């Protein structure tokens, strides 16, 4: 199956006064048409930077995509001139962000903002663009879409704002939708609605979805494939079922164990010991070794590669997936 998005060995580094932060350091993932890839990990592991790299939205004085290849619907993203890149953003690939409260421009109506997205990429007139905008507002479940067009963002609730963002992102039917923690800032009761909306719209248009989250529950509901990231690298990836039923990497295991269980009663909640290392100073060898209960000597000095442990299921660990004891 032709992949809509293919990222190969992406490295995005930030050159700050205090050193180089290797936020994304060798990530390879891919998403197919009508499929959802869940990118999961704690804050600081590089998931958002990966997403921003796809659209080349990394702030350029400190940040830079130093290596790798990104292919989007056959186009080599990293070699495109900026003018063509602008064409792609919003049309071939769209992104929605975590903070709907601040992601919309407060001084323009939501109608204006959606129409802007349409008119940048097509030569539609205002009236035509307005129709499309209204159509999509209705699709995402905004009540009275025609009247809502002239409302300002502050007049909408968080959930509504996120729906507007989704409308804006999907109105030009992109091949890829990147959703960076789309429900994290929303009430739990609203989250389900947003997720369902994304799923429905995906089914309608066949859009590939890259869903970034730290919430395994959301992954379970939405993702077909999963990639677990830690400290700028993918440590485990594979089909969702496979990962959930038979996770391999100790970090993934830690993530699952940290979920409060509804059936078991434990006295203490499990946490992975230690904290996520700063991107300025990753540990040598396997980056997880400082927090890993299974770490051996080899882990401290050599980085484990991603190896197949099952069909489509890969893991990077010397102990569990390296053939070494």
């Amino acid at each position: 199956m032709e992949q809509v998005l293919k990222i190969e060995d992406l490295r995005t580094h930030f050159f700050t006064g205090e050193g180089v932060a290797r936020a994304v350091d060798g990530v390879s993932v891919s998403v197919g048409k009508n499929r959802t890839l869940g990118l999961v990990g704690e804050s600081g592991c590089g998931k958002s930077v990966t997403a921003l790299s796809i659209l080349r939205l990394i702030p350029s004085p400190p940040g830079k995509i130093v290596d790798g290849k990104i292919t989007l619907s056959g186009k080599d993203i990293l070699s495109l001139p900026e003018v063509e890149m602008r064409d792609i953003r919003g049309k071939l690939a769209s992104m929605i962000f975590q903070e709907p409260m601040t992601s919309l421009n407060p001084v323009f109506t939501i109608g204006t903002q959606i129409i802007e997205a349409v008119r940048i990429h097509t030569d539609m007139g205002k009236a035509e663009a307005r129709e499309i905008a209204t159509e999509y507002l209705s699709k995402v479940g905004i009540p009275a879409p025609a009247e809502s067009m002239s409302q300002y963002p502050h007049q909408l609730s968080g959930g509504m704002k996120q729906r507007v963002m989704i409308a804006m992102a999907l109105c030009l039917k992109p091949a890829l939708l990147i959703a960076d923690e789309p429900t994290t800032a929303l009430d739990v009761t609203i989250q389900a609605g947003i997720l369902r909306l994304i799923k429905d719209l995906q089914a309608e248009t066949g859009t590939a979805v890259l869903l970034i989250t730290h919430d395994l529950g959301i992954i379970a509901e939405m993702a077909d494939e999963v990639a677990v990231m830690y400290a700028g690298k993918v440590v485990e990836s594979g089909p969702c079922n496979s990962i959930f039923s038979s996770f391999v990497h100790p970090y993934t295991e830690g993530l699952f164990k940290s979920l409060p269980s509804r059936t078991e009663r434990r006295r203490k909640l499990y946490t992975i010991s230690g904290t996520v290392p700063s991107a300025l100073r990753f540990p040598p060898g396997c980056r997880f070794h400082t927090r890993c209960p299974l770490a051996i000597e080899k882990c401290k000095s050599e980085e484990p590669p991603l190896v197949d442990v099952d069909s489509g299921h890969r893991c990077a660990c010397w102990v569990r997936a390296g053939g070494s004891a």
Partner: protein
Amino acid sequence: MIHYIVRRLLLAVPTVLGVCLVTFLLFNVFASPEAVARKQLGKNPTPAQVKAWVTAHGMDKPMFFNLNPGKDGSIRPFDSRFWNHMTELLLFRFPESDYLHEKVIDLLKQKIVPSLTITVPAFLLSILVTLPIALLIAYYRGTYIDRLALLICVILMSIVILNYIIVGQYLLAVVFKYFPIYGYDFGVGAWKFLLLPVILAVASGLGGGVRFYRTVMLNEVRADYVRTAMAKGVSEEGVLFKHVLKNAMIPILTVTVLSIPFLITGSLLLEMYFGIPGMGNLMLNAINSHDYPVIRTLVYIYSLLYIAGSILTDISYTLVDPRVVFE
């Protein structure tokens, strides 16, 4: 809208009263009338002269309540320094200048226009020049152009305004003779006297203005909605000129509209230097000749202007920020 303005004006009343009180305290309590008289009368006045001055200015009356019967035997309890001061200001019955022997209100009428002929062009020109430069710098943010521009701004800001005026006048008017050195003309011929002061006014404010606008722009550029706009495919120019600029208007307006009432007050230094007979000149003369009635009145009027300015500023917000509603 009318309700809002009325309410703000009513709320401003206690502040205005406070301002009158402060000026009263300053000129009556913190400085004794005799000391003021002595300063006014110049070198070594006789006690008789001092007393005459004090009586003529009504400063020998009691502070708050006058229970002494007057010449005709009547008692006017509100004929005291405090009440006279308050009514003078609040009822706009402005006094006469000690020095110029004209009513302050007449002086004001004469002097406002010359001040405006300098401040208004300077104000407009300043915005027209600094805003585009700031936008340009924001476009190149993070690059060496940005850093160089910022350094230049700081250097320009570090040159005291006196230098701009003195050196500017010396070089451009005296040495190169591009402009007349000094003077003013009422009527159409005034413009050639205005060019140099206006240019110098704009030049001296360039560094600070560009830096301020740049900071405002860069604050907005960091916002999330800019990231969304770029993710939609909006160009750099589109982001700056549409998205950022409109949001930046909010803080920019605060500063700009607030300074509009002060266009009337005129620039002390420019008027002094170029012989413009405006409000700044009036103020300066009043200072040097210890003309208290003028100073008192000016402080009061300028405070009213400030209050008017802040009401105007609040109203202007509603024009640019849809989140602000008259409540």
